[in-house]
């Protein structure tokens, strides 16, 4: 009798376990991630991967993604592009041809984003990228299956420069130190035009990514009597060193970064010399809407939460919502729903805005509110919240 009861109970437990698994997830759905997971861009790449992972974990914890009568357990397949075009091409080939992935997050950076287009667009693979080059959205494919999920120079430069003109009327000449690659070369014309429109002189110098000693170039720029250094698209590591070294050679004026994302890593490198540094950023950690993400990140990962985490957390939420609304995993249907999400209330940034028709010929450019922050002793405070220009 006792044995029979145990057998029945065990059978019920096993059956209920299977039933609950079935209720939670019928199949696995993998998203592709292409990010720099080694080399100088690793911090940004991990930020992307972690932002996606947190968004997927939340959906899995609530039972999975329900689409087309099935429930999917979400996961990701990540490949390293080392922040370069050739590796990004290899990664996207593997994801699309070998793994059969239909939805890809990344790459970050213009070289990788541009090189991946020739694979993803003909294959109708839906891609969510970050990178400043206009060609990412303005191309022969008319960005059919690609969305840029972060502001680029075209969206934020003019607003930032107008703000600089108002907040720092003493600035007459700006020195821009720019990485000598597709990202940097995309930033220069837009930012230069914006500065000149406000009547400011501009001096531009390039540096090679991977370099750590910027003192000679900064000295050369100081000799041009610049009042403000703009570090624009430098990575956090490079920007931290520039902030430190420009102060070490005695520059007393303003140092600002109109681009990039994340202030903490720069402060970690420049230390006390970061005091007064002004920076564009994509998240206000003090905002109540951001707190659940900040807490989730702290529970799961170590190290500072850089700007790529909120960017790709937000992008993943947009993609998953579009899948739910399309009730399908067909990339064309999902793409159409992503476009229709205009005005959908995102957790981090409020109503979703797609733009870019004037600049790129399509509305696949996200319009994110952004923040100008300043390092003030040991704290970082928001000086102003700005809206991008479409």
């Amino acid at each position, binding site marked *: 009798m006792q044995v029979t009861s145990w057998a029945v109970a065990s059978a019920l437990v096993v059956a209920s376990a299977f039933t609950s698994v079935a209720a939670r997830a019928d199949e696995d759905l993998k998203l592709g991630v292409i990010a720099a997971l*080694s*080399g*100088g861009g*690793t*911090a940004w790449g*991990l930020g992307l991967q972690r932002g996606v992972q947190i968004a997927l974990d939340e959906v899995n914890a609530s039972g999975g993604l329900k689409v087309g009568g099935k429930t999917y357990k979400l996961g990701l397949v990540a490949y390293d592009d080392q922040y370069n075009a050739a590796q990004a091409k290899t990664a996207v080939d593997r994801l699309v041809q070998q793994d059969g992935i239909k939805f890809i997050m990344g790459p970050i950076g213009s070289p990788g984003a541009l090189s991946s287009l020739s694979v993803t667009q003909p294959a109708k693979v839906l891609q969510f990228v970050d990178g400043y080059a206009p060609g990412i959205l303005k191309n022969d494919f008319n960005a059919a299956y690609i969305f840029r999920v972060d502001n680029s120079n075209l969206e934020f430069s003019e607003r930032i420069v107008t703000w600089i003109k108002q907040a720092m009327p003493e600035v007459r000449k700006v020195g821009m130190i720019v990485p*000598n690659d597709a990202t940097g070369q995309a930033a220069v014309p837009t930012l230069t035009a914006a500065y000149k429109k406000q009547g400011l002189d501009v001096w531009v*110098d*390039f*540096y*090679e990514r*991977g*370099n*750590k*000693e910027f*003192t*000679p*170039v900064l*000295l*050369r720029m100081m*000799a*041009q009597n610049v009042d403000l250094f703009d570090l624009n698209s430098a990575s*956090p*590591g490079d920007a*931290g*060193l520039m902030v430190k070294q420009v*102060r*070490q*050679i*005695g520059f007393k004026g303003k140092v600002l970064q109109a681009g990039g994302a994340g202030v903490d*890593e720069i402060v*970690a*490198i*420049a*230390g*006390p*010399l970061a005091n007064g540094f002004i920076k564009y950023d994509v998240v206000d950690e003090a905002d109540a809407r951001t707190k659940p993400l900040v807490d989730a990140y702290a529970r799961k990962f*170590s*190290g*500072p939460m850089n700007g790529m985490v909120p960017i790709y957390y937000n992008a993943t939420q947009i993609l998953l919502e579009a899948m739910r609304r399309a009730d399908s995993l067909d990339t064309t249907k999902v793409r159409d729903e992503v476009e229709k999400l205009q005005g959908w209330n995102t957790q981090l940034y409020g109503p979703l805005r797609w733009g870019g028709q004037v600049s790129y010929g399509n509305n696949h450019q996200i319009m994110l509110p952004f923040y100008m922050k300043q390092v003030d002793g040991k704290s970082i405070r928001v000086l102003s919240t700005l809206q991008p220009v479409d």
Partner: protein
Amino acid sequence: MLTPLMLGQVVINGISLSAIYILVALGFTLLFGIMRVVNFAHGSFAMLGGYALFYFYGQWELPYLLAAPLAAASVAVASLVLERLVFRLFYQKMFQSMIALLGLDMAITFTALLVWNPYERSVPTPLDGVLSVSGLIIPEDKLVITGVAAVALLAFWLFTRFTRHGLALRAASQDLEIAQIQGVDTTRLYRLAFLIAIFMAALAGGFYAQTYSLSPTMGERPLLMAFIVVILGGMGSIPGVALGGLLLGFSESALSTFYGSAVSTFVSFGVVFLLLIFRPWGILGTPEHE
């Protein structure tokens, strides 16, 4: 816009850059000079030296003059395990050592990525102020590095000229077989050279991390610079390291200031390229057949 002040600043930047390059390249050239090993894992040992200093000085707050050598020594002693398991298999095998140690470099770097995180961080410095002398700006941390590099170079030179072990090292580097016949214990000698080379790499890595930043991938740049310096000066030559470091440091400072960093990089690699064609043994090195 050339002013005397700017020219002075170029010289100061050149000296501080040269000091870093010399310090980084000393251990690299020693291993090649004695054991004919091209240590492509050099940057990884520099990185480990950076992390060791981060803990000894930044976390455990030992006095700096104790923390800096202790951090480098701890990396050197711990690396003896790798000397026994890996390096010893490749002594006097130049080409095999390149590939094997490139693999070791990747293994150390990716282990570091797992142990720590990829984020760059700073290592505190005992002196982080700026000296102003007649309008010239001298960062104190770079002044310390310049002093250490000068002392290290002198100590190296004195060691190889006037000590028993140093003379044995020189003898082995000139003719291994003759040195062995004369009773030099090459196993012990190699271990000593390895210990000194890794100590220097780790010491340089500590300073490098303090001057720039610390991360598991920080070793790539020091390795590249060490390689250029020893090719310029001559593989295995200590005076060559001094000359190569000074040439690279001053040319980078002057060319970057007056013509921009692209020209500086182009010229640096262009000179190395020409040297490899016309004088592959470097300015102060000796050709293999001599």
